[in-house]
């Protein structure tokens, strides 16, 4: 009786590993098929009529090496924009999602405001918001507010991505069954406590993958701040290509973005897997 849960868990794990395969033969087949596929792809590209020219303008190793250090330095600005914006986005978005989940007619104005905000900033193209705020806001000459383009670029990104991320959080909150809140309230927890200890932890766990999706999107969109004149990776690579008429610096910038986003994606996958293993080992479909 006591080992009931354990036995079920073992059974489920065994079942899963059979479905996923994983024996030596399967590994060999997938390896061979991968090699064959990429060989075919490489052959098709290198035998295209325009390949010699493309190789010269996009895959110039010398150009790559000479432009890379400066682009990498400029990329630090992208990282900075991303990191600062992200901190604000995760907090503000959660606040807005919670506002939207408040029940009762008293909170209608707050709910309406949150809905209007999300609708508006998800509807306007990112590049427009950045342009409007980046070029318009400094012209207001507000006291005690920075006029730097980077600052307003960050504000624009925060406004846009908070709208997206608040929707993600909201979906997470709504996916937690009402019986969970009822159970928490029945123990004497206030609505706020139930939200904090019971609903939100479950909601946030469930939305980690879509959340990461938005983080990657944000990371890429930091390049849009370049239109305001800030010298970030994309702007720097554009300066380089303008000087040499060679497009290889674009690839250098792209490599830098990918170098950050891919590890981030794998890291999140690992987090999700760890959480699932810990909690759901015993769940039988």
């Amino acid at each position, binding site marked *: 009786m006591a080992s009931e849960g354990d036995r079920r868990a073992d059974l489920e794990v065994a079942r899963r590993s059979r479905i996923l395969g994983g024996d030596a033969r399967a590994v060999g087949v997938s390896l061979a098929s991968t090699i064959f596929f990429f060989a075919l792809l490489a052959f098709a590209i290198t035998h295209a009529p325009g390949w010699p020219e493309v190789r010269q303008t996009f895959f110039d190793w010398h150009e790559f090496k000479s432009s890379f250090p400066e682009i990498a330095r400029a990329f630090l600005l992208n990282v900075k924009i991303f990191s600062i914006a992200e901190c604000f986005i995760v907090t503000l978005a959660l606040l807005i999602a919670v506002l939207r989940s408040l029940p009762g007619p008293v909170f209608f104005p707050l709910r309406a405001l949150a809905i209007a905000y999300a609708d508006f900033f998800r509807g306007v193209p990112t590049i427009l918001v950045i342009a409007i705020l980046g070029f318009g806001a400094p012209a207001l000459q507000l006291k005690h507010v920075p006029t730097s383009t980077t600052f307003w670029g960050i504000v624009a990104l925060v406004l846009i991505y908070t709208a997206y991320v608040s929707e993600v959080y909201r979906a997470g909150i709504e996916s937690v069954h009402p019986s969970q809140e009822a159970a*928490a309230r029945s123990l004497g927890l206030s609505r706020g406590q139930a939200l904090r*200890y019971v609903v939100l932890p479950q909601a946030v766990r469930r939305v980690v993958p879509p959340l990461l999706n938005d983080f990657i999107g944000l990371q890429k969109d930091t390049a849009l701040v370049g239109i305001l004149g800030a010298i970030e990776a994309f702007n720097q690579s554009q300066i380089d290509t303008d000087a040499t008429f060679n497009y290889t610096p674009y690839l250098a910038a792209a490599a830098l973005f990918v170098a950050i986003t891919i590890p981030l994606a794998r890291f999140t996958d690992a987090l999700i897997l760890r959480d699932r293993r810990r909690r759901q080992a015993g769940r039988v479909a």
Partner: protein
Amino acid sequence: MSALELESVRKSFGRLEVLRGIDLGVAEHEVVCLIGASGSGKSTLLRCVNLIEPVDSGRIVVEGAEITRRGVDVNTIRRRIGIVFQAFNLFPHMSVLHNVTLAPRAVLGRSRREAEAGARELLARFGLADKGDDYPDRLSGGQQQRVAIVRALAMEPQLMLLDEVTSALDPELVAEVLEVIRELAAGGMTMLIATHEMGFAREIADRVCFLDEGVILEQGPPAQIFTRPREPRTQQFLARIVAAGRM
């Protein structure tokens, strides 16, 4: 003074009248079982007592204090009333120990050490001593339901409401949960129990109430209700239960 007093409690969901005037008193240390077909209002009645559902009219009085008054602090009232649900409703993202200590710490302001000591003692009392660090999904249904009972008990309630706590369990796991309830009754816990387990109700109840279409149609000691029910509807209901082999 009775532990719980309901006076003409009514509750509708939209046009559906679920409770149509319930009068019921439960004395200290009394175990009252609610029986009746699905949809007769048993669960709604329990949920109203816990204020999960607001009543439309009528009064509910707990230990002399009316809890259906306007402006009453529901959080304070719920502390004194434990409820256990059919579907366990454990918090899946917390270990068993954390499930049990959450409310004592967050609501009663107990220290972590104090709350955990109390929780471990309760878990041990109900045969769950080695389960404290497990997550709910690792446990069998019977174990989960026992944890849910322990979680409610950790708040030291004066009254326990059990809402068909064995209905979601595999048949072989029912006994261990009933054993826990038996122990609670022996310890003098005041309980209001909605159940489909007629044999159990007969054994444990001081009084059995038959609910039919939102009213208590008949009530009395189990021996009377189960062997000499007066109302034709009660007789029909029990005949169906017997025919289904459930008694």
